[in-house]
């Protein structure tokens, strides 16, 4: 999405098809909000899976306020129960327990009565890749893959990965312009406030520091209805115009700013 386009800055490039016109409030890119890249695999703890929220039926589950499609974690197997269509593992990672279902591919599963087809056994540790599902009121993880873990370091590191990911989504990237990132000694800091509409804050957290700087400048700098030109932004921030263009594209794609007079004049999209 921020592929190399060098100096030929063109927000109406091939992939956006149509761009973002003033007054066109229902732009397809405007609705995405939370960064859009929810195809990633999130490292989580089981407690986060059990605490995940589902804003409305059929909606993707949310962890730390961000959509999550795939999760991974390491946990200890408490119970294995084989059914005709799936194997259900009850797993526990010390933060809670959850059921993991691995659907049996009838084409490849020739013998169902092999004790542990993948070397998975009760009390053993496993790494699970899957997605959070719910059936009735019961939450479970539909596993894409489940394999045994024998190295304790891998298991312990998975806990740290989950922590790092949690902090990223609640406090923003490490060392970035996100205020309280370095601070907070105890407990979870509140969401970093960029002063804009709440939906913007979430989108901004996953963006580059340049993009956040531009957003803050557009928010605080005195300006008329038409916003600020790329060149003005570049001068104020002391950044090369190419970087500003790139970061501007990020903001445009997330729908937090829009272009006004021309493609290189931007204002914050307040809604």
């Amino acid at each position, binding site marked *: 999405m921020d592929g190399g386009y060098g100096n030929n800055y063109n927000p109406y490039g091939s992939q956006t098809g149509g761009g973002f016109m003033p007054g066109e409030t229902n732009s397809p890119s405007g609705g995405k909000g939370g960064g859009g890249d929810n195809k990633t695999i999130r490292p*989580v*703890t*089981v*407690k*986060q899976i*059990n605490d995940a929220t589902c804003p409305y039926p059929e909606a993707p589950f949310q962890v730390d306020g961000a959509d999550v499609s795939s999760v991974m974690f390491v946990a*200890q197997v408490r119970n294995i129960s084989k059914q005709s269509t799936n194997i259900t593992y009850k797993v*526990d990672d*010390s*933060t*809670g*327990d*959850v059921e993991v279902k691995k659907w049996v591919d009838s084409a490849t599963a020739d013998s169902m009565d092999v004790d542990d087809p993948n070397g998975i056994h009760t*009390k053993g*540790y496993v790494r699970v890749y899957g997605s959070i599902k719910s059936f009735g009121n019961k939450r479970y993880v539909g596993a894409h893959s489940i394999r045994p873990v024998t*190295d*304790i*370091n891998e298991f*312990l*590191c998975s*806990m*740290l990965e*989950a*922590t790092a990911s*949690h*902090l990223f989504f609640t406090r923003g990237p490490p060392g970035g312009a996100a205020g309280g990132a370095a601070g907070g*000694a*105890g*407990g*979870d800091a509140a969401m970093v406030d960029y002063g804009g509409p709440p939906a913007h804050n979430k989108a901004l957290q996953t963006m580059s520091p340049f993009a956040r700087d531009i957003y803050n400048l557009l928010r605080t700098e005195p300006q008329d209805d038409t916003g600020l030109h790329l060149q003005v932004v570049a001068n104020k921030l002391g950044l090369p115009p190419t970087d500003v263009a790139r970061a501007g594209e990020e903001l445009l794609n997330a729908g937090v700013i829009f272009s006004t007079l021309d493609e290189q004049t931007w204002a914050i999209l307040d809604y």
Partner: protein
Amino acid sequence: MSLQTPRILPQHLSNFHPNANSRTHTVRILGTVSALQGETAKITCGTHGDVTLILTPDEHLQMGKLVEIVGKVADIEGGVGIRVLGTTDWGNPADCDYKIYEQVVEATHRVKSIFYDAE
């Protein structure tokens, strides 16, 4: 609610003592078996000292192995120990970087919300 068993180091035992102001008294701890005496055993937790365990008849520990203990914090003769509920054998202690475990314990208590419900 499912059972939550925060990971700790020996110096945290008193925080999860039944008299302490904590919702959970069941904890996990990682250490190397350093003494076996009938119904009690000792594990050594890196450079953080020893913890005395009260064993159940059906848990078998082996000297020199790295084990993960799940248990309840309990009073024992001369201090605080752990009444064992379950053990997991992790084999040779040399295969584990105990520093990672220390970091996990640190993260567990610093970023509580994704690990356990406090008080």
